[in-house]
């Protein structure tokens, strides 16, 4: 099985860096949305964040192209950040 080196480098960066960012932004939204005390909501979000990270990594390598991997991750980050901002600041 061969992949172009560009695609591999790009997907790896998407998985590690993009995945970390997405894990955090999804957790931001979860922490803001959970109907419990702030401390509890943060604990839930932190503990679940690794699950989000794992999904993001799988997505980075499962997407048809490296570009799609990045688009999917950026989209998720953007949407969850908006949810977080809406809930926290709105």
């Amino acid at each position: 099985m061969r992949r172009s080196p560009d695609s591999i480098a790009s997907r790896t960066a998407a998985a590690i860096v993009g995945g970390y960012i997405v894990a955090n932004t999804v957790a931001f939204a979860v922490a803001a949305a959970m109907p419990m005390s702030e401390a509890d909501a943060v604990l839930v979000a932190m503990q679940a964040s690794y699950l989000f990270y794992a999904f993001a990594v799988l997505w980075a390598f499962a997407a048809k192209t490296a570009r799609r991997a990045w688009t999917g991750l950026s989209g998720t980050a953007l949407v969850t950040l908006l949810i977080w901002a809406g809930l926290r600041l709105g």
Partner: protein
Amino acid sequence: MNFRHSMTWLHTWSGLLLGWLLYLMFVTGTTGYFDVEITRWMQPEIPVQSEQFDTNTLIPKAEQRLREVAPKAEEYFIELPQGRYPYFMIWWHNPDTIDEAGWHSEILDPNTGVPITARETAGGEFLYRLHYVLHYIPKALAYWLTSLAAMFMLVALVTGVVIHRRIFKDFFTFRRTKKQTSWLDMHNLFGVLPIPFYLMITYSGLILLMFSTMLPIPASTFGLNPEKFKQMYNTVFTEAAHRDAAGIAADSIPLLDFYQRTQTENKDAVIVHIAVENPGDKHALVEIGIQPKTGLDNADTTRYQATNGEAYPAASHYSDGSAPMAFYETMEKLHEGLFAGPLLRWLYFLSGLMGAAMVATGTIFWAVKRRYAHDKAGIESRGLRLVEGLNVGIVVGLPIAIAAYFFANRLLPAALESRAEWEAHSLFLVWFIALIHPFVRRANASLSSVWTEQLSVAALIYALIPLLNMMTSDYHLIKALRHGDWVLAGFDLFMLLAAFCFACAVYRVNKNNKIDETAATVNPTNEVRV
């Protein structure tokens, strides 16, 4: 490329990249399940376990010792003998304001109550800490590296399941004679059986470091104000109903009274510790720790006012009313396995070793598969040689280095300055030699002879450890067995078992070589799967 193929690719490369770090984490983390037993072996000045403890005379002696040695302590406690560590220990915590700040401990002779002067050692704790603090690098960096490795492990586990459509069929497949595929079969065997353990240990490991790696999340709620975050952190982790010192000295009731009282009130109670908060103060509290009935419960504690013996409300935990925190604490307990009795503890140990074996066979399969393809195509790759050499130096080199650590414990002079650190240096020095050995040797030797050499050294060095124990302490294996000291005897017996396993591995490598040589002349091609 379909989903399953991408996952195969991801599994192969992510597994290799952090496989060696994961191997280190599995091996040293697994030793952590027997950390106190290892420390006990590393302090041969401690006498073999005596038959009976006279708890009623030892508690007053321990209390008296604590008053002498820890007059300024904020907290001290007596640890009563238990199955894993059948010795009386005293611990005290000095305030940060005095020279000897922090925690200190002493082991008391079970017969006389006099403290035992044992050698300085990094002990089992060093090996255990190695699996997440690493060594020679800052703690914060180690937390990130080990978390990254655990994250890869999580991904490798998920992708491993995805690529095994035939997971159950593969599990029961073992092709002993085909060298290449039998590595894969072994990898599957070690990988599938303890999958619940791997998922638990990996995820809980990640969670335990979340306050280092996932700090943006609390910041998203509490903002960048460190005070608000600190407040949240303290709320969830600190025991409530703590009682501040009054600052007025007062006499307190002897600890033995509290011990005897608990025993009369609760006949089944197994008392594990007696602690005093703010000793010598008017507000001093005595806490009696009782072994919980079921493993995952918090330890039952009863508290009394030390001056008049009146009951005081038990400390409450944030997790009592918070499901997320209860989940966190459960994960922590499952990861550390402190609650585990002997049988479960061995199961933990075995699962951990299987994890190490899974990673090792995975990285070996990676190399064997490529070696086969390269040889067929007549390519010589430096990258592959590097992986092959590192596989030997890590898979066998690390156990050799750990054995060297035990040797250093017995052979370094007792009065050596920073002795504990030199024990650690010995481990890394020997490991370094084991890491370069394959590259030096392969100039004129085959890969399998490099394996054989290191495996033979491992078998020999582990077989010598009980002998070393006999020569450098008064308590050899036979004597320990005669006294029924299973902690001490168990260590030596396990070393012999390890030596036997390495010897078997030497035998297998030699035998496989012979099969390969014959097979190469009869049937030059082998079917390759995956």
